[in-house]
């Protein structure tokens, strides 16, 4: 057990206690406050005359990410930034600790309309497992150049993609509905056949076999599947392989069971297992109608799987959050307009000129990760305006390079110069940042039950002369003696 005693403790959530104690046990905070009793045997860390606050969190950082994660490319929303982490950049981690930063939000960038999922990293010692959360939020409009050259075009293709995804969802819903009907019809037919064949001898067996034969034949003279309007990747070879497999096991029940298995859209989207639906659809025109009528109902056409749209589907259905990188008031309004039509769980980041459209942001109820640069006056005032409007926001470094993250407190200080209160500024780089990143159950405030990520500094969080003396992560001293 460890007690940090005697300091001015900032909870990160707005509370400040003079001459207070932070009690830590097994890497978690046990108690915080001015009247916390220190149990006997606890190790005492003297913090008198010091300020104690939660480890700072840069909600939009490049720390520990291999620069290759920021390449350009098409929409590839199935990517995960965790795959691009470089755990061994220990030097930047030490630099970050030295300025009080203990966690970062990292997100892929530069992938056009949509890009992969972000992660929250805790800056633990060594190259230990650092991912605190991942996979919860995809990136939208990450490629500023695409927008800068033609913002209209960029937004139009964004809407187009969302529309296509909506249609994709509809087509799958429709397919699944029809498939259910079809299965029921087949079942009926089977019973009827059974009843009929029951009169003859061993009819059941024969019926099954007959159907298998038919399938075989259908496939051979079936048309190739119609290419999707966008020509999306469809793995023909794989299909054929699977067809062969199917030919070997043409059991009717097996086939129905497979169809149902196919209906489960998993994360990232399952690869298309078989394409029988398409083939059958083609067959129908081939003059098999008679047989169809005799044999049973028309099998519905199965839409093509698209891995990107399977992910976007989750975003549209609210299972995945979306972070949009916006640069300027007009950009923000355009994104909010899109959100009106497509119910995305949106977070805005970057957000230059956010103060000019604060009313609209407030109305949309969208949280903001605001980038503040200490040298550019623009967003300094934005933070104060967002606070006045009661908008949920975090502050982040400009994010041009991994090295910027360590000076997050400078960015927060600049926001204070723009009119934000000091405790609000601290909250925006601790508790609010954690909440917007979805990790507030673990980090971002000095409160019982939270991880003991604690900074002890010689002065108030944003004072020029304040020096970080000690940093604890999970209750262990990682910086300072």
């Amino acid at each position, binding site marked *: 057990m460890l007690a940090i005693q005697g300091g001015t403790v900032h909870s990160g959530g707005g509370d400040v206690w003079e001459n207070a104690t932070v009690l830590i046990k097994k890497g978690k905070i046990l108690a915080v406050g001015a009247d916390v009793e220190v149990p006997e045997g606890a190790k005492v860390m003297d913090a008198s005359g010091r300020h104690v606050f939660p480890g700072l969190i840069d909600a939009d950082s490049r720390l520990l990410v291999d620069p290759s994660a920021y390449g350009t490319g098409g929409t590839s929303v199935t990517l995960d930034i965790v795959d691009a982490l470089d755990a061994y950049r220990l030097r930047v981690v030490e630099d970050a600790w030295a300025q009080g930063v203990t966690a970062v939000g990292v997100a892929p960038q530069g992938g056009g309309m949509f890009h992969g999922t972000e992660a929250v990293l805790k800056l633990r010692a060594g190259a230990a497992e650092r991912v605190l959360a991942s996979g919860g939020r995809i990136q939208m409009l990450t490629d500023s150049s695409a927008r800068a050259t033609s913002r209209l075009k960029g937004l139009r293709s964004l809407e187009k993609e969302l529309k296509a995804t909506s249609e994709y969802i509809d087509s799958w819903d429709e397919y699944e509905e029809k498939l259910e009907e079809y299965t029921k019809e087949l079942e009926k037919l089977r019973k009827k056949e059974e009843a009929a064949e029951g009169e003859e001898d061993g009819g059941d067996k024969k019926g099954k076999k007959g159907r298998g034969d038919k399938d075989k034949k259908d496939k051979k003279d079936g048309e190739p599947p119609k290419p999707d309007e966008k020509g999306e990747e469809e793995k023909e070879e794989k299909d054929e392989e699977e067809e062969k497999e199917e030919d070997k096991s043409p059991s009717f029940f097996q086939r129905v069971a497979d169809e149902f298995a196919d209906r489960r859209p998993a994360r990232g989207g399952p690869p298309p297992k078989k394409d029988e639906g398409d083939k059958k659809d083609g067959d129908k025109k081939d003059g098999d109608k008679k047989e169809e009528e005799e044999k049973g109902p028309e099998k519905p056409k199965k839409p093509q799987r698209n891995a990107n749209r399977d992910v976007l589907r989750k975003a549209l259905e609210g299972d995945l959050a979306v972070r949009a990188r916006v640069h300027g008031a007009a950009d923000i309004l355009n994104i909010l307009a899109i959100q009106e039509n497509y119910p995305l769980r949106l977070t805005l980041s970057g957000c230059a000129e956010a103060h000019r459209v604060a009313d609209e942001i407030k109305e949309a109820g969208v949280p903001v990760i605001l980038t503040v640069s200490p*040298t550019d006056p623009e967003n300094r005032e934005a933070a104060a305006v967002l606070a006045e409007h009661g908008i949920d926001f975090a502050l982040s470094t400009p994010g041009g390079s991994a*090295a910027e993250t360590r000076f997050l407190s*400078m960015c927060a200080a600049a926001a204070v110069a723009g009119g934000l209160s000091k405790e609000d500024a601290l909250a925006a780089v601790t508790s609010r940042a954690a909440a917007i990143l979805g990790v507030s159950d673990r980090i971002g405030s000095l409160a019982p039950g939270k991880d003991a990520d604690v900074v002890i500094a010689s002065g108030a969080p*944003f004072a020029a*002369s304040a020096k970080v003396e000690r940093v604890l992560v999970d209750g262990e001293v990682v910086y300072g003696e």
Partner: protein
Amino acid sequence: MSMKPALSRWRKPALMFALLLVVPLVASPLAAGGGSKKLGGPVIAIRAGTVLTGTSADAPDGYVVIRNGRIEGLGVAEAPDGAWIVDAPDGTLCPGLIDPVTSLGAADDLSEPARALTPRARASESLHAEHSGFRKAAEGGVTLVGLSPTSDNLIGGRVSAVHTSGGDARASTALASGPLRLSLTRQAFPYARTPTSRMGALPMLHESLAGDLKDAGALLVEANSADEIRLAIGLPDAPTRGLTLLRPYDADELLDIVRDSGATAVLGPYGLSTSTRRLRLAKALRDHNVEIAFTGSGNPRALRLAAALAMREGLSEKDAIAAVTSVPARILGLQDQVGLLQPGKRADLVVFDGHPLDLSSSVQLCLVGGFPVHVADDE
């Protein structure tokens, strides 16, 4: 920027700062011509919670009184009759910040690309005194800047010291012929003009400095790498002239040599991604008794950021303040006029609502030559 007669409300209500107008305004500061040549203006008495004089002496309690554009006295018990009284119990009063190397207010290029040596050029010839950058600088607490030729010439010409009061060019130019700006970086000998190499450049430079420019005074030399720094220190009479090294990034490799040369260093601008090594250079130089100044390239926030970042990497508060006030004043040759809060000095003063190098502080009042050029607005 305008002075409003009713200044009872402030942007931050919690702020205990209050500027009380005891006498009506004589005229708007700009109309009165807030320049160096024409000092004057109202009698002002400022009392601030913290006063940073920049000298070894602490400021005695009481008012800092300003008359005729100069500091008349410190620790004055009673404000003179009829003076404007500025009471800022939570504020910090300090000398106006000085950025020694900028292109602020340049109406035209600050180099003459056709020739490598243009010692007669003066940056003030390119000055556009009404440039809006001066207002922004004053709003950020910068009261004087060095308008400097660029590093495109071996000898670029004279740095001019310009007040940020704006308006009349002649009035705002404190010193037209400041230090001579030189460059030893690759940029100074392009292939399109003679000399095209350092081998060709050095004899020309030495000849010129030992000949026509023997008495040209102080030098401001851009020298980034260790070899460039050595060359700068080896220029004719460099130590006796007064040598300032601009951005001597590798100086940490030859700290003793720089110390022995008596050179001063100008560092910056720094950004958030500036390497820790560069940020630590300020402290390393001070530890070797080398005077340092910072530049923000004319952006007052960048100037304060440079000092604040260096403080994060160990520079003392006192050295950091000096690096944006008294040291740059000396580099520009105006140490008798500005850079310290002392009786007789020009009233280039700033009141911040916190510590000047806390990026969370803002400028509440900025006086240039005794005239308020920026008063924080209530909106």
